[in-house]
């Protein structure tokens, strides 16, 4: 969840630019949604409980979880209206957040 904070500050700008933010994690959705409501950020949370989609996109950090379970590799991907990737960040370090201004610039450029 901490990883969503970087974009939290620009959610409204992203919405104003017409973009939808889909946040994907293996967590059950209710917890994520409760948390987002608490933070007042407008994400649409999608549960990838068994990491099927995450795995299909090559974004699994094997054994990276607290108990050695597989977790998603933190990633931010900007997709245009045609479904084509226009900007992407694949984290090499859990602490790294995408630069909110870069994401916004990528979305506004679409």
């Amino acid at each position, binding site marked *: 969840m901490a990883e969503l904070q970087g974009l939290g500050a620009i959610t409204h700008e992203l919405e104003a630019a017409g973009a939808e933010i889909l946040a994907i994690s293996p967590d059950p*959705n209710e917890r994520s949604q409760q948390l987002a409501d608490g933070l007042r950020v407008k994400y*649409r949370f999608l549960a990838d409980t068994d990491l099927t989609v995450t795995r299909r996109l090559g974004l699994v950090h094997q054994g990276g979880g607290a108990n050695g379970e597989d977790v998603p590799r933190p990633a931010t991907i900007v997709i245009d209206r045609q479904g084509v990737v226009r900007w992407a960040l694949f984290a090499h370090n859990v602490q790294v957040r995408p630069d909110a201004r870069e994401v916004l610039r990528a979305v506004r450029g679409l």
Partner: protein
Amino acid sequence: MSAPKLAAAALALSLGTVGAYAGLIAALSFPLPPAWYLGALGFAAALALAAVWRARRWLTVSAFAVSALLLVAAGLFNFVAMRVPESRPLVAVGQPVPDFTLTDAAGRPVSLSDYRGKKPVVLVFYRGYW
């Protein structure tokens, strides 16, 4: 600056940096950028080393021990524990993303293709609630 003052400054900077990291995580779930805390801890260790250089006393030596230990621990934390190994993303700039369907918090199915021709999408993959 006198050796005890240098040692005290080093200790304050070291412990303050660790406190700032923990405080920022607790309050905003946001980590202090690694370059900042490694820089601050490195500077603190250098201050403590200067203090030891000027006067080798228990205060200066222990300040150096504490700041050097925290610097090494922070380095291991950043470069080993927090590192994400390279995966082979099957997503690349300029390429289409394969469609998928997942359920949202209300249990409704959502497909990436629902937005085709309508809205840009920002996909955020994250590890979960922690």
